[in-house]
């Protein structure tokens, strides 16, 4: 018996159906993380089979194993470092030529290899006949035929895995690269210290050195006594170059493909060339010259609708649920700081995390459908001309579009970009897409400072400004961060497939869990921090004694009511006069019912007055005084909240940064609002509401607009400057948390926050200063 614990590395080309097979084998027993130091995903899963525990490591999908892409380096180092017992290479049987190119390179790593020939049904449909036995003999490896999307062949694959693991036989395959190259390989091999313990197979190292693989050169350069060796390599490369008139790496590639071509000629018999497949026929419509783009925009419109229009319903339920829950806690917990922490800090923070979840689920439903069906590559195909002009990949369009709804799923959606540089640039500019959380700020300020005719134009200009700056910054980042790097677009157009429900559900589930675990905790922690900053210190020294003032107000009004109502009626309390008490109740009910219809109130009041003029006079006077008392106390409450916020750490921060904000036309109050709004941009409205003493959270936006319009600090120009600043400055905490998660680096997270804030400052500065100089909108 062999070992009970078998480690299997799963390799294969993108679009070979590798992930489907991995899902078939491991089901929900998967773990997703990152390889250390890079953003390449590391996926592993466990499967028990015949009393054996099989650990499957799903390597990134690659076409080759050179050092030219991060995915390729990760895949091959995983094979070297994690010493899997064997490699399962998934191949697309309908496209064997190109898939075998990776297989040959895997065989060279000198581990046992099993070829999983996937999609054999598709190959048959295309009229390809495969001689599997002969192929197995030629390559010296076992082959299993599979149809991943119908879960066929999984059992047989697992049995083969166990057999091969028990045999522990190494593969004997050696590709003959021809006399000249083989001589060079032998020469380099003799240069290795015969006793040295190398992690890598020697022949493979020699081939990689001939291919001028940067990573392997660096590794070999660090081995003892190797200065000579690298000189030998360089000499060999020069010799081969003169012999072939081409760099050795290309000679080696051509040699591999020659071998593959020879094998395929023997193994595959096909009917006719240039078969127009079903996919080609579908593409005649979907990437059609005339209707290809309209179809694309239609699909994008649908995606946006699904994510945000449908998403707002579950979002509403979550918000209601959180509100009910915090209401419950409020009633059962004693007032105090702990309650404030639990209700405003923790529940508020958890609610903030959860509200994004429906969008993320729906977005990844859409992305999984687009990717698994094969349309994603077509989307990139039709959009690339436009996106190339911006310096981005065709696929970057989708996450950027989603950004108009919310930046959090947008940044998570950049995963569809395989190239890490494309992905980073897209992440950096995605927050410039004006998300829906910023809209309440724009509408508040536009309504307060501009005529309704201008509103639409200004709103459009804001969105446009975001797009234009995103283009400018994308070009700049591309130039400055990755100078001289040319991006290749060369991309496979996979055949269309019906997506399976299983893979879509796994995809959605996985993304949501990652969001909740990795980003969610960060968002929660940051929300609590912001809550702390706006609520503490709690012992603010107020300009007056508010509690005393409130008591005084109560007392004053009760005297007033006594003098003007109770004494003339000869009562001490309302209940003593039944008619009076009934009349007051009727007035109360009338007030509540007729809130929206002042005319109706008046006619009904008139009727009440006719019924009993004397009592009505006193009752209406009494009710008016009660309302006035409540208003006065509420005003005191708001003034107190405003002073408390001004005295909080956030308020102090606002005052400290005021000199920096002054050139933009902002005072410390706006500073506090902007600070709190890093938690979530729409918070700016409610914070300004608190600080201007007009209602707390969810305060009356129209009332706030009036107060802002009356504040001498504000002017249409300042409003403009503030709108631009909120559009551009640091993305909200949730967005930053996913930037951290997607770039796997604090450096880029901080960079995103800092650069956008600087950009916001510069733009707002220009607007305010130029506007002031020209005397516009003062």
């Amino acid at each position, binding site marked *: 018996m062999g070992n009970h614990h078998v480690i299997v590395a799963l390799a294969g080309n993108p679009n070979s159906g590798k992930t489907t097979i991995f899902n078939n084998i491991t089901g929900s027993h998967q773990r997703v993380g990152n390889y250390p130091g890079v953003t390449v995903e590391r996926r592993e899963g466990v499967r028990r089979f015949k009393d054996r525990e099989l650990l499957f490591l799903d390597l990134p999908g690659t076409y*080759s194993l050179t050092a030219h892409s991060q995915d390729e380096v990760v895949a091959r180092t995983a094979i070297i470092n994690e010493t899997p017992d064997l490699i399962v290479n998934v191949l697309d049987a309908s496209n*064997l030529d190109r898939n075998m190119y990776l297989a040959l390179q895997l065989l060279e790593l000198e581990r046992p290899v099993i070829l999983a020939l996937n999609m054999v049904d598709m190959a048959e449909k295309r009229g390809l006949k495969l001689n599997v036995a002969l192929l197995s003999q030629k390559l010296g490896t076992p082959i299993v035929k599979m149809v991943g999307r119908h879960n066929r062949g999984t059992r047989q694959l697992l049995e083969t895995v166990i057999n091969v693991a028990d045999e522990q036989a190494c593969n004997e395959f050696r590709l003959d690269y021809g006399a000249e190259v083989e001589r060079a390989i032998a020469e380099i091999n003799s240069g290795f210290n015969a006793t040295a313990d190398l992690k890598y197979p020697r022949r493979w190292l020699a081939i990689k050195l001939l291919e001028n693989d940067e990573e392997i050169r660096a590794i070999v350069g660090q081995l003892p006594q190797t200065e000579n060796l690298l000189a030998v390599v360089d000499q060999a490369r020069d010799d081969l170059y003169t012999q072939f008139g081409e760099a050795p790496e290309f000679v080696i590639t051509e040699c591999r493909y020659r071998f593959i071509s020879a094998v395929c000629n023997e193994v595959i018999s096909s009917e006719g060339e240039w078969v127009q497949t079903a996919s080609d026929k579908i593409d005649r419509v979907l*990437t059609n*010259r005339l209707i290809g783009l309209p179809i694309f925009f239609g699909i994008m419109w649908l995606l946006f609708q699904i994510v945000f229009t449908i998403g707002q319903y579950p979002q509403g339920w979550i918000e209601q649920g959180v509100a009910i829950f915090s209401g419950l806690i409020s009633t059962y917990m004693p007032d105090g700081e702990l309650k404030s922490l639990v209700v405003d800090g923790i529940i508020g923070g958890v609610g903030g995390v959860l509200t994004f979840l429906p969008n993320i689920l729906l977005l990844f439903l859409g992305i999984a459908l687009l990717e698994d069906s094969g349309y994603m590559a077509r989307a*990139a195909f039709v959009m690339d001309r436009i996106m190339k002009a911006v310096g981005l990949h065709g696929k970057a369009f989708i996450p950027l579009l989603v950004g108009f709804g919310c930046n959090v799923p947008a940044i998570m959606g950049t995963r569809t970009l395989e190239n890490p540089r494309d992905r980073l640039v897209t992440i950096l500019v995605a927050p410039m897409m004006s998300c829906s959380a910023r809209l309440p700020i724009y509408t508040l300020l536009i309504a307060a400072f501009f005529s309704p005719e201008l509103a639409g134009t200004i709103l459009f200009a804001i969105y446009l400004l975001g797009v234009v700056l995103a283009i400018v910054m994308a070009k700049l980042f591309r130039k400055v961060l990755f100078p001289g790097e040319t991006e290749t677009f*060369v991309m*496979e*157009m996979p055949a269309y497939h019906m997506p399976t429900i299983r893979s879509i559900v796994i995809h959605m589930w996985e993304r949501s869990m990652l969001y909740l675990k990795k980003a969610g905790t960060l968002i929660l922690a940051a929300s609590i921090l912001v809550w702390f900053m706006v609520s503490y210190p709690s012992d603010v020294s107020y300009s007056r004694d508010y509690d005393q003032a409130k008591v005084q107000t109560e007392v004053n009004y009760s005297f007033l009511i006594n003098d003007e109502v109770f004494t003339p009626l000869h009562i001490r309390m309302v209940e003593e006069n039944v008619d009076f008490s009934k009349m007051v109740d009727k007035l109360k009910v009338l007030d509540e019912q007729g809130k929206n219809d002042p005319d109706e109130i008046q006619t009904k009041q008139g009727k009440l007055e006719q019924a009993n003029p004397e009592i009505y006079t006193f009752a209406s006077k009494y009710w008016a005084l009660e309302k006035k008392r409540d208003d006065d106390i509420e005003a005191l409450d708001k003034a107190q909240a405003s002073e408390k916020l001004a005295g909080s750490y956030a308020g102090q921060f606002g005052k400290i940064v005021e000199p920096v904000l002054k050139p933009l036309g902002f005072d410390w109050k706006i500073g506090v609002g902007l600070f709190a709004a890093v938690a979530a941009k729409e918070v700016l409205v409610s914070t300004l509401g608190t600080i201007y003493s007009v209602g707390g959270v969810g305060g009356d936006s129209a009332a706030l607009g009036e107060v802002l319009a009356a504040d001498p600090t504000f002017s249409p120009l300042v409003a403009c400057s503030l709108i631009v600043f909120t559009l551009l400055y640091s993305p909200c905490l949730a967005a930053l948390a996913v930037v951290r998660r997607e770039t796997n680096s604090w450096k880029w997270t901080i960079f995103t926050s800092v650069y956008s804030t600087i950009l916001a400052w510069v733009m707002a500065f220009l607007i305010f200063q130029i506007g002031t100089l020209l005397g516009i909108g003062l």
Partner: protein
Amino acid sequence: MKRVVYHNSNDNDYQYRIRGAIKYMAKMLNQLKPGDVGIVCRVIGNGAVKRRLLDMGLVAGTPVKVQKYAPLGDPMEIKVKNFNLSLRKAEAALIELS
């Protein structure tokens, strides 16, 4: 045959003429129309693009067929053996056909 000697011409100019001549003679992939077929002769250059194109199987002797151009004229889609590949015209311009 009379041998042409370029007097008064600097090295750059000479290089330019040579390249022009190659371009005139060889057909590049980006010059094909949809439906046209060709056989790869070689991929020009030494960089990442060449590396990637060769990895994808565009080695000498491989037949290719142009499927179509994107709605905005770029990139293009070709058939290589049993799969479809899209690439930008600038990348296709590196692929010389025989």
